[in-house]
């Protein structure tokens, strides 16, 4: 149900460590926002696009992943045409699309596990301050992935109950019961986690 956006592959971009890719993404966004010159932005856009399209994703899937964001960018660019000079609009479109394509390439070539290792490293300062525990973040993440299918099944049961009674699906009659039924399990789940000593407290 929740399949990661990672795409298996053996490209050179797959083999670069996550940290390097994330630093590159941050550096790229800083660099792209520092310039308005189309002579820098156009190559950046073409390179990001080439990188993203050569990762082994089918073209259709590749485009549908960035389609919605591109739509927003183009819509805002169309609005901008009336408000700011044309060269600036072109710079904006190229810059944002380059950034989005590069970000999509990082997402497509990095596994959840690799990301989580990096998140754990990034959380270490907070952990040292005693604000949170990295293990808790991992546990919470696992719980979400574990319970999404359950909650979805519960939604379908509620929707079927509506249909059986000939009632239309209304947000109120679905969301209320869905939330109460789900959150009511919190105590049992928490007891189960503590009983297994997952959090060592």
């Amino acid at each position, binding site marked *: 149900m929740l399949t990661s*956006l990672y795409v298996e592959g053996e490209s050179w971009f797959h083999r670069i460590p996550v940290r390097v890719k994330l630093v590159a993404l941050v550096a790229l966004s800083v660099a792209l926002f520092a310039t308005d010159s189309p002579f820098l932005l156009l190559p950046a856009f073409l390179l990001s696009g080439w990188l993203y399209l050569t990762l082994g994703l089918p073209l259709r899937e590749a485009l549908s992943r960035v389609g919605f964001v591109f739509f927003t960018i183009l819509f805002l660019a169309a*609005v901008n045409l009336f408000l700011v000079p044309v060269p600036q609009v072109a710079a904006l479109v190229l810059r944002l699309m380059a950034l989005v394509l590069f970000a999509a390439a990082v997402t497509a070539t990095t596994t959840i596990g690799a990301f989580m290792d990096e998140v754990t490293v990034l959380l270490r300062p907070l952990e040292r301050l005693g604000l949170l525990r990295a293990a*808790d973040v991992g546990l919470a*993440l696992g719980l979400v992935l574990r319970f999404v299918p359950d909650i979805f099944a519960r939604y379908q049961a509620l929707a079927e109950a509506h249909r059986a009674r000939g009632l239309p699906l209304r947000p109120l009659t679905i969301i209320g019961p869905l939330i109460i039924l789900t*959150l009511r399990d919190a105590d049992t789940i928490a007891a189960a986690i503590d009983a297994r000593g997952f959090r060592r407290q």
Partner: protein
Amino acid sequence: MNTRDLVLIALFTAIIVVLGLVPPITLGFIPVPITAQSMGVMLAGCIIGAKRGGLAFLLLVLLVAIGLPVLSGGRGGLAVLAGPSGGFIIGWAVAAFVTGLVAEHFVKPQTSEASQFAGFFFASILGGIVVLYGIGVPWLSAITGTPLLAAATGSLVFIPGDLLKAAIATLAARAVYAGYPLLPARA
């Protein structure tokens, strides 16, 4: 944070993910179907409170960032955060926190039913609309170069729909509050 709070946060994040998976719901009297996920901010703040609601959305942002398609329409990944509406997604956490703060302040077990409704509605509007747009719109303007005033005027189109969502979230939050109150519980 105790284990129960952690579980409540994770379960609420999972609910928000599911609300993005289900087909948009039509209301009957308006033609445009609404995405249930977009009510998540208001629901999280009003139902599990400021701290847990805010953390539930931070967890959602983390899920988006590590490449899970958890947003409505199967969107996700760093590309969504890098796009023009990235500010709204980051802003969700703050918006849920503020919604929770206001709800905790105004809604108490001893207050009358009418003022509980009013409290949830006010919290949803302040957190889910004012704070959210207060973060998302300047962000969008900074990233796209659209003048702030134009971006703000343009987003007024969404306000009627958001008010409707606030109303639905109010009714749902009040129903949960009556059936299984979590808002004041500081375990």
